[in-house]
Structure formats: structure tokens, C-alpha cells
């Protein structure tokens, strides 16, 4: 993997990003103790800690983090609205929310201090990804309950660069603004970056000729292939960042110019990587569920929040000089992870493989069963006119290509079944992509 970092991109916004590990650990421990004290203001945590007889004094080392209770999305929902608020309502400076999958937003609160911290965290990854005070940034994220727009907005301002709060949608208008104001930086979801490139071509504009040089993308899972596509189509450097509203929003981690994992802002977040079944730590570098503890949040402290996001963590030093642990892209969700003959597989990987073969994702379904002792995976793919040939050899080759790509991306052998259009059941909202027939237990 390439680790060449251009000297000009070696800027670091906050010296805290390069703290020697022992100093960072001491800071984390002090902050963890203060956190345990603070969460006593939240009834949910007070009850948990009381039952386990835990107090700030029981936290003697960072390993004691594992004695603290988990927090799940269901816990947050049960205590809506604002049941996890740890400060008087009068001290709340902002409320954001996530749409979630159930329709009703889950709210999260910030103090003025939290907003300061948040802007600083976003400033860090923006600078790591090329932002300079003289730049102009077009933010094509929604400004609203969603944390993306405002989070990045204040981060850009903190760096001292100019913000164009273009907000999301209206691609034509985005392109007009871009061509009149010449922003060097674009902030949006990765898929919207591709929409902007498409929109430019439709208007007869070469997307590579747009003024953009850097892009900061987040808010949805994406792949390395997509990064290459975005970089190639817009002629920019694309940076990934990660965060979630339950924790703070964007700013939990972000890439540096090495483009090799996202640096976790460890002075503000303790991130564990656990086996979602056993809740034991996975070996370093192995995929697991990220579990995040907020070290400095005032209004909305979270103990061991189960993100359900699957990623890998590693501590190997980065040539950029930051001493922080890095995380991979989010490879999927612990709630849809499949273990096939010992290999962890995510439907998103099958999707990526299909994308490689077809250039677009068709309707598909993953069927898993275990006829004997070995797992068998069948991927059903709906045939589309562009894929169909009257020649049998081409159709057989298509099946083989899909199977080969799935093997390359997900590391498993699959049987590919081509099926007629509209035969895979459609679901309103989130698609059901997996049928697992291995576990038929009824409890």
C-alpha cells in the first residue's frame, strides 16, 4: 500500500493529534474518570453504575473501560426525547437528530462547549485532507437535524476558510455556484459527488475542468472503487471521514494524505473493536463492531455506544506523524454480517462485486444454507437487458465473472444464479438482501 505523503500535505491542525502514546493514554484515563462522574447525571447510567457498584474511583486503568455498560440504539430510543441529557436543559446550545430506520428521529444534544469541540474535530480532518485558510468550501450536505451540514460548516470556519452553505440537492445550482465562486473543496456524500459529475456532463461541462481540488466525503458507506471513480471523474483528491450523530456527528475520524485509514480522534473518543456476538475484543486488524465512548461530550455523554458499524482498527504509526489509531472504511453492519465457512462477509461486498461486473447494482439476493457440513452461498442476480445475450457462451461467462468478482471482493466461493426480472421480492425502504437458512432455531 502506498504511503507517500507530499510534504505540503503534512500539516496538522492540532498538536493533540501527535501526542506521544503514553501522554495520550494518561489524558484518556483522566477524561474517562471525569466521564464516569459526569454520566451519573443520566438516570440510565446512574442505575447501571449503581448496580455494578462502579464509581470514578473504580476506573484505575483504561482496561476498566470494559467494566462499563454498553449503550445501544434501542436504549436511546427508549429514553427519547433527550433522556440521556447530562446537563440542565438551559445549558443545551443545539439539538440534532438522526432519521434512523424507524421513522422517528433520535435526538442528541450539545452544549456550547460541545459545539466548540466538534468544530475543532472537523477542522482536524479537513486540514489533514488539504484544507487551507485561503480555500473556499462548497458544502452540499443537508443543513438540518442531520449533523453533516452544520458539523462541517463550523469546522471549515474554524480553519479560517470560506464556506458556501449550498446545502444538498439541485445539482444544476450546485454547478452554477461552483463555476462562479471557484471553490477548491467539495463536501457531500460520495454518491452525490458522482451525481455532480454526471450533472456537469449533461450540461456539456467537463467535470475535470471544475475548480475542485479536494473532496471530503462521508455520511454513507462507500468503497475504494468509488473513491477512484470520484477522483478520476472530478480530478480531485477524495478523503473519507467518519462519524455518527449519536456520538457527535462527523469528526470521530478522518483520513490524512496517506489515504490509508482514518485517524481516530482518540483524545475525545475511546474506540473499541469487538466481536458483535461475544462482545470480546477482536485481534488488532481484524474486523469487528466499533464501540465508542465519548471522553469529552458534556450534554450527551455515551458509554460504550454500539455503533453496529464493522471496521478494522490498527495502531501502526502513520507516516503523516499523527500518533492516533486508524480505522478502515466501514465494511458493513454487524446486523447483516454473514460468516461463511469462517469468512466474514457483508452484503455490501457482494454489491461491490456486482457493481464491478455491471457498472450498476442490479437486484440481488444472497441465499445461505448448509446442505452438509459446509456453508453454501447462492447469489441470485436479476438479469437486465444490458447483460443479456442470445449467446449461451456469453451468459455462462457472465455467471463466471460475477462469481470471480465476488471471490475477489468477499473471499468466498458462490454459486451465481441468473433469474428473470422482477422475481426477487421488493421491499419498501431497506431491501432485504440475505436469506440465511442455516439457523432455523425458533427461540
Amino acid at each position, binding site marked *: 500500500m502506498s504511503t507517500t505523503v507530499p510534504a505540503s500535505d503534512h500539516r496538522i491542525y492540532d498538536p493533540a493529534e501527535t501526542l506521544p502514546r503514553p501522554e495520550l493514554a494518561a489524558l484518556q484515563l483522566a477524561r474517562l474518570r471525569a466521564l464516569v462522574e459526569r454520566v451519573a447525571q443520566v438516570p440510565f447510567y446512574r442505575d447501571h453504575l449503581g448496580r455494578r457498584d462502579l464509581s470514578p474511583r473504580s476506573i484505575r486503568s483504561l482496561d476498566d473501560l470494559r467494566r462499563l455498560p454498553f449503550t445501544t440504539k434501542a436504549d436511546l430510543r427508549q429514553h427519547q426525547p433527550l433522556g440521556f441529557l447530562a446537563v440542565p436543559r438551559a445549558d443545551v446550545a443545539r439539538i440534532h437528530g438522526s432519521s434512523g430506520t424507524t421513522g422517528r428521529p433520535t435526538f442528541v444534544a450539545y452544549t456550547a462547549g460541545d459545539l466548540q469541540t466538534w468544530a475543532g474535530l472537523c477542522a482536524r480532518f479537513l486540514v489533514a485532507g488539504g484544507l487551507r485558510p485561503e480555500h473556499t468550501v462548497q458544502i452540499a450536505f443537508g443543513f438540518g437535524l442531520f449533523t453533516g451540514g452544520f458539523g462541517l460548516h463550523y469546522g471549515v470556519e474554524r480553519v479560517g476558510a470560506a464556506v458556501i452553505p449550498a446545502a444538498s440537492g439541485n445539482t444544476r445550482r450546485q454547478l452554477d455556484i461552483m463555476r462562479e465562486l471557484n471553490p477548491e473543496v467539495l463536501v457531500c456524500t460520495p454518491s452525490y459527488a458522482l451525481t455532480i459529475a454526471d450533472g456537469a456532463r449533461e450540461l456539456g461541462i467537463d467535470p475535470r475542468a471544475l475548480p475542485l481540488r479536494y473532496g471530503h466525503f462521508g455520511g454513507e458507506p462507500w468503497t475504494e472503487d468509488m473513491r477512484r471513480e470520484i477522483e478520476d471523474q472530478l480530478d480531485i483528491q477524495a478523503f473519507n471521514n467518519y462519524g455518527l450523530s449519536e456520538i457527535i456527528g462527523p469528526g470521530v475520524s478522518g483520513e490524512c494524505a496517506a489515504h490509508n485509514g482514518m485517524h481516530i480522534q482518540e483524545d475525545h473518543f475511546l474506540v473499541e473493536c469487538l466481536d458483535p456476538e461475544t462482545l470480546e475484543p477482536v485481534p488488532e486488524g481484524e474486523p469487528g463492531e466499533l464501540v465508542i465512548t465519548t471522553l469529552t461530550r458534556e450534554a450527551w455523554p455515551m458509554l460504550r455506544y454500539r455503533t453496529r458499524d464493522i471496521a478494522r482498527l490498527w495502531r501502526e504509526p502513520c507516516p503523516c506523524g499523527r500518533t492516533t489509531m486508524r480505522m478502515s472504511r466501514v465494511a458493513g453492519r454487524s446486523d447483516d454480517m454473514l460468516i461463511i465457512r469462517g469468512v466474514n462477509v457483508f452484503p455490501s461486498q457482494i454489491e461491490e462485486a456486482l457493481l464491478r461486473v455491471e457498472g450498476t447494482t442490479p437486484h440481488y439476493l444472497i441465499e445461505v444454507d448448509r446442505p452438509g457440513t459446509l456453508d453454501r452461498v447462492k447469489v441470485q442476480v436479476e*438479469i437486465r437487458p444490458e447483460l*443479456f445475450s*442470445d*449467446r449461451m457462451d456469453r451468459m455462462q461467462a457472465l455467471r463466471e465473472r460475477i462469481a470471480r468478482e465476488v471471490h475477489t471482493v468477499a473471499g468466498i466461493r458462490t454459486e451465481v444464479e441468473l433469474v428473470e426480472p422482477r422475481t426477487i421480492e421488493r421491499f419498501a425502504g431497506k431491501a432485504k438482501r440475505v436469506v440465511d437458512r442455516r439457523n432455523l432455531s425458533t427461540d
Partner: protein
Amino acid sequence: MKLQQLSLFIENRPGHLGAPLEALAAAGINLVTLSLADTAQFGILRLIVRDWERAKQVLERAGWVVNVTEVVAVDVVDRPGGLAEILKVLEGAGLNVEYLYAFALRREGRSILVLRFEDPDRALQVLDAAGLHGAAAEELFSHLP
């Protein structure tokens, strides 16, 4: 001559072959001929019909994926060696037959051969040069019931 052939993707399951044929029958579309290439899992149904554009529309509206391919139709005298003679000509010209199927015209004592080439125009030239003329469309279709 060249003909437009319709190809359909069908799953190899009971009822899946009959359904598109029923849809065509309901629309009053008669089949000139058909052939089926299949695997254990799926098949490719290839159809020759007089009004292929309408047939395509009917099938696509009913949800099938339909592909149109130009194929070459050739007259073969119905006697031993008729087909071998044609294949020899094609082989001599280095033309590869992707697939072929045949059907007989009852009244004439002749067979019509349907051949799929990568380059149908070149195949026609080769056949013409060898004095093997493709069946004329009007003639072909005029013999249909």
C-alpha cells in the same frame, strides 16, 4: 437474407417456457420457428416471428428481457449433404457459426437454416459468392400458415 431474431431469458423451471409463448398467442402472433438453448438453471429462447417488433413489445410489456439479433436464413435443398455443403463454404471463409437451427417448409421439400454469426453481412457475402442464396423474406413468410 437477414432475419430479426428475438431472444428471451427464461429460468429453467416448470411453466417458464410456456408463459411467453402464451403471451404471444394471446396477442395473435404466430411463430415461424423457435429454438431453445438451456442449462440446468436457465435457458435462452430464440424466436422467429413475422412481426418481430410487435412481438418484442408484447414480451417486454409482460416483463421479459428481450434481445434482438440479426441472423442469416439460408435455403437448403432437402437432400443428403445439403447442410454439409454450406458449412464447408463457411469454414473455407474462416467464418464461425455461433449457433444454428433449422426448420422444414412442408410444401416445398426444402429446409431453412437459421445461422448466427458475429458478422452476418460478411457471412451473406460469402454465401452469395458461393452461389448459396439466402432465402428471400417474402418467400419464406409467404409459406406460413
